[in-house]
Each structure stands twice: as C-alpha cells, then as structure tokens.
C-alpha cells in the first residue's frame, strides 16, 4: 500500500480532450469531469481487470497499450489491442454485469478511470454533460458493433 502517494502524484492531470468519449464537452464542462477522474499506472503484463470481475469503472488509455483477452477453455484469445485515446470496460457504465473479458497492459501505460457511481451521480447533477457522454458512448458502441459485424474486432461486449 502506498501511503504517501506516487511519484507522479504532483504532475498536472492528463487532458481528457484526447479521449474520444469526452471530446464533445465544452471548456466549462470539462473541469466537472476532470474532478471525477482517477489516474493509474500499469506495467506491461499487469492485469487491469479480470473476466468475471464486477464492473465498477470505465477506463481510458492516456498512454501505452492494453489488450483485451478472453479465455475460452484453456485457450487465450485476443479480442482487441487498444491504444491511447481509446476506452474499454465501457459496459460497466450501463449495467452491473461481470466483466466479459480480461484487460491486460501490453506496454507500460497510464489510464484514467471513471467510477460508475460518479457517472450515475453526474446524470442527476449535470444531466447535460452526462447526456453528451452517453451520446459519445452510444456512438462508440455502435462503431464497435459495426466492426464486430464486419469481423474486424470482437470486443463489442466488454
């Protein structure tokens, strides 16, 4: 347990603008979302979340890469390789179902994390911001569904 913070604790927070989910937010709205974010560092090979975990948060990649894996029997199948700017674990925002796949860092990476309950609270306190994010999320899921239908990626069920 790190009681006195991390070495990057005093650095400026990474801008959220580069993350697609928040790209439609205005300058006035951005600080509200910034206040909700958590920032985490993962080393290459570290598990971000496991298949079967309770989904409590959505992740966005600030730097590095994350692969999405599914274990089918004894076989491990890579569903997607995600880079900076992309989000994963997004279904945690919509329901409380267990994670459908494992997320693992393939390179050292920095992730910003948003807790589902904070988003639910945002729906009540800042419905305009929440609806913008929900619209981006719907577009994002639609894109993934189209890709999955085209057979390019199979990660539309995170």
């Amino acid at each position: 347990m790190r009681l006195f913070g991390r070495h990057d604790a005093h650095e400026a927070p990474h801008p959220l603008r580069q993350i697609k989910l928040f790209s439609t937010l205005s300058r006035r709205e951005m600080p509200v979302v910034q206040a909700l974010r958590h920032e985490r560092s993962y080393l290459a090979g570290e598990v971000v979340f496991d298949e079967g975990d309770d989904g409590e948060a959505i992740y966005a990649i600030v730097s590095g890469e994350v692969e999405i894996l599914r274990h089918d029997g004894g076989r491990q199948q890579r569903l997607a390789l995600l880079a900076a700017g992309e989000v994963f674990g997004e279904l945690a925002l919509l329901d409380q179902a267990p994670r459908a796949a494992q997320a693992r860092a393939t390179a050292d990476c920095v992730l910003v994390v948003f807790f589902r309950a904070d988003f639910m609270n945002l729906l009540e306190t800042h419905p305009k911001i929440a609806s913008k994010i929900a619209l981006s999320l719907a577009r994002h899921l639609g894109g993934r569904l189209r890709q999955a239908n085209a057979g390019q990626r199979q990660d539309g069920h995170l």
Partner: protein
Amino acid sequence: MRRLRPSGAGPLAWCGILLATTLALYLFQQVLWLVLPFLFGLIAYYFLAYPMQRLMFAGLSQESAANITVGVFALLLVGAFAFMLPRFAAQAVGVQETGMRYLQGGLLLLDQTLRALEQQSRFMRDAHVADAVSSYIAAAGEGFAQNRLPSLMMSVAAWLPSMLLAPFLAYFFLRDGRRFQRFLARAVPNAYFERTLHLLYEVDRTTRAYFQGLVKLTVLDAVCLAAGLWVIGLSSPLTLGIITAVLAWISFVGSVIGCALVVMVAATDFPGSPSIAYASIGLFILVRLLDDFIFMPLTIGRSLRMHPLITVLMIFVGGAVAGVAGLLLVLPVLGVIMVIGETLSIVASDPRLRARHAHARRLRWQAVTRDL
C-alpha cells in the same frame, strides 16, 4: 474463466465488525469534544453538497463553490445567532422560571397519578409508593443540582468552542472531500483499486443515506407530534414537536426525555385535567410505533440495510459502553464499519485479487532491478 467468488462477510468477519464498532464507540466517547463537531460537520456537508454542486455547474471551481456555499451558510448562522441571542438573553431568567414551573407541574402530575393508584391498590398504599417516589425525586433533584449540574454546565461550556469546528470541517469536506477520496484510492494497489472505489462509494452512500434519513425522520416525527399536540390543545406544539423529534436522535433515552418533556408541559398547562397528559403519552406511544414500524424502515433502516436484531443489540451495547454518546453514535458508526468490514473480508478472501497483486509486485520488482 471461472472464478472463486466470495459471497460476503462470514461469522468471523461479523464478530470483527461488532467488536470494532464497540471499540470505536469507546474511543469516540473519550474524544467526544471532537466527535460531535465532526458529526455536525458531516450533517452540514451533506446538507450543503447539493447547492455547491449547482454552483459548480454554473461554472465555478470546486474551491470557489465551497467558499461561497459555506460563506453564505456561515452568514446565515451568524445572522440567526445575532437575532436570537438578545431575545434569549432577555428571557434567560424567564426560561429558567418556566422550566422550573413545568418541572413542578410534571412532578405534581406524577404525585397525583401515584396517589390515585394508591387508592386503587392496597399493596401500593401499604408501600407508601407516592411518598417514597416524591422523596426520592426530591433527593435526586437536590443531589443533581448540587453535585452534577455544575460539572455538567462546565463540560457543556468547554464543548461549545469545539462546536465551532463543525462549519470548518464542513468547509473542508466540501472543498477537499473528492481530493481526499482520490488520495485514499491512489494509496491502494491496482489489483484492489476498483473494490476500494466501491468501498469508498458505499461508505459515502451509507453515511449520506443515514444522515438524510435522519433529517427526514426528524421532519416526519416533528410534523406528526406537532399535529397531535395541536389537536390535544397544548401550547407551542411546533416547538415541542421539533425539540422532541431532535431528542429522538438519542435512541430510547431521547424518546423518554421527549415524552417526559411533553407530559410536563401538558400537566402544567392543564393542571386540573390529567387526561390531557395521558393523551400526550398516548400520542407519544402512537408516534413511536409509527416511527418504529413505518418511518424508520422507510428512512434510516433502508439506508443501513441492517438486521433489526443486530440494530437493537448494538444500541444496548452502545449505551452500555459509551452512555448517551454511544446511543447517539452507534447506528452511523455500525453502518460505516459494517460496509468496511464486509468489503475487506471479501477482498481478503479473494485469492485471485491477491494473486494479481503479487504478480504486479513481481513485475514492479523486475522493472526496478532490470539494469542492476
């Protein structure tokens, strides 16, 4: 992938939760001068959080919104204090006299009731119950006034400055609450991160729901009692309703004191008709039943999701360990410790989380020793 998923806190964890609650109550009793301002600060925080959020949405930063919210709240408090103080000072002597009058009225009613019972019961008459109770109350009152009252007044006077901490605490909860939450979450290893976020959320949800439930319960109690007292015909029904509803924050003892207060007022206002006082007692029992079976489950009970047997048991334990403070604090403390204990026991008994943490530590060790 199949996971061994722990289902919840086991009997050992529950023993730990009850033990930790008892210990916390004992420790809180020792630093009550700090715990009470903390409690009031927390109530003010949950009360002011919504207007602060509205200000933030209007474009203000969290710090500015907290400054304005607490500033306006403090001004209102100072204004109310400035308005009330001269009136209270002018009536201080009157308040004391009124208090003594109501006390005498209550004692007279008790004496009349006991004497009426003595006429009905030979056993009570032979035992001289009315005389014995009257002399006991007189002795206890004298002993209280001589021995306990000065020290009680001194300790209340010593506490008053520390109560000024409450608005300061509320201000820092509002301004830095989320920052502190992030600070705590940052201290947790990646493997336990999501569970910790959930834990912090649950602790916040439980305390928020408890205090909001408490305020709702107080309003419901106050309205019911005030309406009932107004129907009975007592003077100042709203004031009495509010005072007794706030006294009910102290489990069991508070309700008894509130009931005694109303009965004293009824006995003094209507000295010739004890039926009014009995009607007040009936009203109190009715509101108490409404409270226990309807209002409490709808407000506080729902927020704590606690078995009624454990609640009652812990109220007795709280009273035995920490007196009135224990009765006041036992439910919120138990609610928070229950959430923490359940989550910790689930996390500690999840082998996959422990394995992930060990794996992450190995990776970190390899990363820092790579070029050595």
